[in-house]
């Protein structure tokens, strides 16, 4: 029997080879840690994989637990969807940008809404002041949604819509536009983000209290399993958690734990897990620490497969497979020397591809300054195309599988996430953890630590705290003026004069009635949309019944 103190080959190498070298030429005096602060050893060998079983823990692509990918043929069969998030100003302007992106070879649409739309406020609400059309496209009623997709056949493309608190309202609008175009709901495909948990945790675009918000989500699950079976009903998002300052591990853990919460609530609402779980998709950030991100994506697939099969007893393979979209890290972009952002984004995109992403958005170089110009957005798309068609990485499935380092890191990420699951389970679940402020505190702590590391120059950001350049030439930026607000206000006034306001009132009252009871909110919402009720009116109707959530501001 091997003695417990027996020296491993790696330890021998450290002693015999490394130590003498260090005496002559020491390593650089910096912390060798990932961007999340995880210490990294100088070398990984087979010694680091003790206890790991290939079939059980890694396995081939397309085989449980899908660590190496959910498709047996990786990108040899189908490349990832190149889906560029876009939206600004008037629906007509955004419609034009979509047509440009599709013409440039984009393969799916992704809608960015402005803050009033995201927060369920009409342009004439006092809090909408200065926000209409600024961070995304302004959508007030079905009429705007018709303009947004004018000339785009919804039956032929897939659309992702980043909308959360008013997800059901916007989804209802999309369905009615599709219906008017003659498309069959049962064949429509796309995604609504509909992930309210990460709003409470990170992005803070919540309206209603957590439990009522969760009901809207499970209503969409139930509705889609009957009416729109190919639609992704939720995109469980780590992206915003990471942007808010979490570590890579926290992103992984909180996102998958959110996923667990949605499945639990769906089952508690009486749904069969295999009826809705296959339509749950995920959305991750790809940050700058190359290997840590790749390990995160691989660990996510392994964890989800295990959770779905063993924790929830899902029977269908489709319920076990984690599908995800990735966006490169907006927060890593710098206003200083913005062309450096092209390089950052390319590396982050490559990490996402090596991690097996199913769809990808690459950020534009000017996004620390403004919404992207058309030129910058096109270059971002070209970055994906260079990876897909020139780099050769798409010839092979999971090229990094079997790397001592990657496999060790994947297992460490998995274990770290399981520890977080335990803590959150002990708190009673994610809704309870959020009410207690637990994930919010963890993220705030991590973001402060990172900022301190940047200040101390333990972490270098090129062009920001090193290699600084004075007198940089400015890059062209997109400037959105106030004309959208003016136009949307006059359109809103016009709409209120021309629509059947009795019909609007009746449909909003039916929505309130359903909200007070237990019926599915999607059906009355579709009627509100058909009557041209506004996003603000529909959201207000539910505010009347459920009230609004307010967080306790903590630092």
């Amino acid at each position: 029997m091997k003695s417990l103190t027996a020296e491993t080959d790696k330890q021998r190498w450290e002693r015999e080879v490394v130590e003498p070298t260090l005496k002559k030429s020491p390593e650089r005096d910096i912390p060798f840690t990932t961007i999340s602060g995880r210490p990294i050893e100088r070398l990984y060998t087979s010694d680091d994989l003790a206890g790991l079983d290939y079939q059980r823990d890694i396995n081939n692509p397309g085989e449980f637990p899908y660590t190496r990918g959910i498709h047996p043929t990786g990108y040899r069969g189908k490349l990832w969807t190149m889906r560029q998030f876009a939206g600004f100003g008037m629906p007509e302007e955004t419609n034009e940008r979509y047509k440009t992106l599709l013409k440039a070879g984009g393969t799916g649409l992704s809608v960015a809404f402005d803050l009033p739309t995201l927060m369920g406020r009409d342009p004439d609400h006092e809090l909408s002041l200065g926000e209409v059309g600024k961070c995304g496209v302004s959508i007030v009623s079905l009429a705007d949604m018709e303009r947004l997709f004018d000339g785009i056949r919804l039956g032929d493309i897939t659309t992702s819509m980043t909308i959360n608190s008013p997800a059901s309202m916007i989804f209802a609008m999309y369905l009615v536009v599709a219906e008017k175009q003659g498309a069959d709901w049962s064949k429509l495909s796309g995604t609504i983000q509909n992930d309210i948990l990460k709003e409470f945790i990170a992005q803070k675009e919540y309206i209603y209290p957590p439990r009522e918000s969760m009901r809207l989500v499970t209503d969409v699950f139930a509705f889609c399993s009957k009416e729109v079976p190919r639609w992704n009903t939720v995109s469980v998002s780590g992206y915003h958690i990471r942007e808010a300052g979490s570590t890579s591990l926290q992103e992984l853990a909180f996102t998958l734990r959110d996923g667990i919460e949605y499945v639990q609530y769906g089952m508690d609402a009486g749904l069969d897990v295999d009826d809705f779980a296959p339509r749950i998709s995920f959305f991750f950030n790809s940050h700058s620490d190359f290997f840590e991100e790749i390990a995160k994506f691989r660990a996510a697939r392994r964890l989800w497969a295990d959770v779905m099969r063993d924790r929830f007893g899902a029977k269908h393979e489709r319920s076990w497979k984690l599908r995800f979209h990735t966006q490169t890290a907006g927060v890593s972009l710098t206003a200083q020397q913005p062309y450096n952002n092209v390089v950052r984004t390319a590396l982050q995109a490559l990490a996402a591809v090596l991690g097996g992403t199913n769809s990808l958005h690459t950020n534009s170089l000017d996004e620390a300054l403004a919404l992207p110009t058309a030129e910058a957005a096109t270059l971002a798309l070209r970055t994906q195309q260079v990876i897909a068609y020139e780099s050769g990485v798409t010839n092979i499935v999971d090229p990094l599988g079997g790397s001592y380092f990657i496999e060790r890191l994947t297992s460490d990420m998995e274990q770290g996430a399981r520890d977080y699951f335990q803590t959150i389970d002990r708190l009673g679940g994610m809704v309870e953890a959020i009410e207690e402020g637990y994930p919010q505190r963890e993220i705030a702590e991590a973001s402060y630590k990172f900022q301190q590391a940047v200040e101390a120059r333990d972490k270098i950001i090129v062009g920001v705290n090193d290699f600084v350049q004075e007198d940089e030439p400015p890059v062209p930026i997109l400037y959105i003026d106030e004309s959208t607000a003016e136009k949307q206000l006059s359109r809103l006034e016009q709409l209120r004069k021309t629509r059947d306001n009795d019909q609007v009132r009746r449909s909003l009252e039916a929505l309130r009635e359903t909200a007070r009871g237990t019926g599915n909110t999607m059906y009355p919402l579709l009627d509100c949309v058909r009557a041209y009720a506004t996003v603000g009116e529909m959201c207000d109707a539910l505010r009347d019944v459920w009230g609004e959530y307010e967080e306790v501001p903590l630092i």
Partner: protein
Amino acid sequence: MRKIRVVIAKPGLDGHDRGAKVIARALRDAGMEVIYMGLRQTPEQIVGAALQEDADAIGLSILSGAHMHICPRVMELLKEKGLDDVMVVIGGIIPDVDIPKLRDIGIKGIFLPGTPMQHIITYINDNVRPRMEQV
């Protein structure tokens, strides 16, 4: 001498509060008294808090592009309440063309992405302290 009192708030509809929270904490760790108001504060609420808390400075975090609506309103209300000596600084995504306009209405520090926390702390210390000593 009493501590510098700073109100930190996020006006507008945006919920991205990472920057506001990091700065609030950095100012507190630097010995200031920080009143963190949190999200979706109207100009009226912010100025009301500055009055009630006897603030020396107000820090606004705006990333959404609504600054040209929110800042003038805050400055107007401060004047109305006789609080013109409260220093207002802003952090966020501010296009170059708007910077002179913000300075014209009396916004002092304008901190763009990538500004070191220490720079903001020093700026507030240097520009607020003399005012306090006059009192």
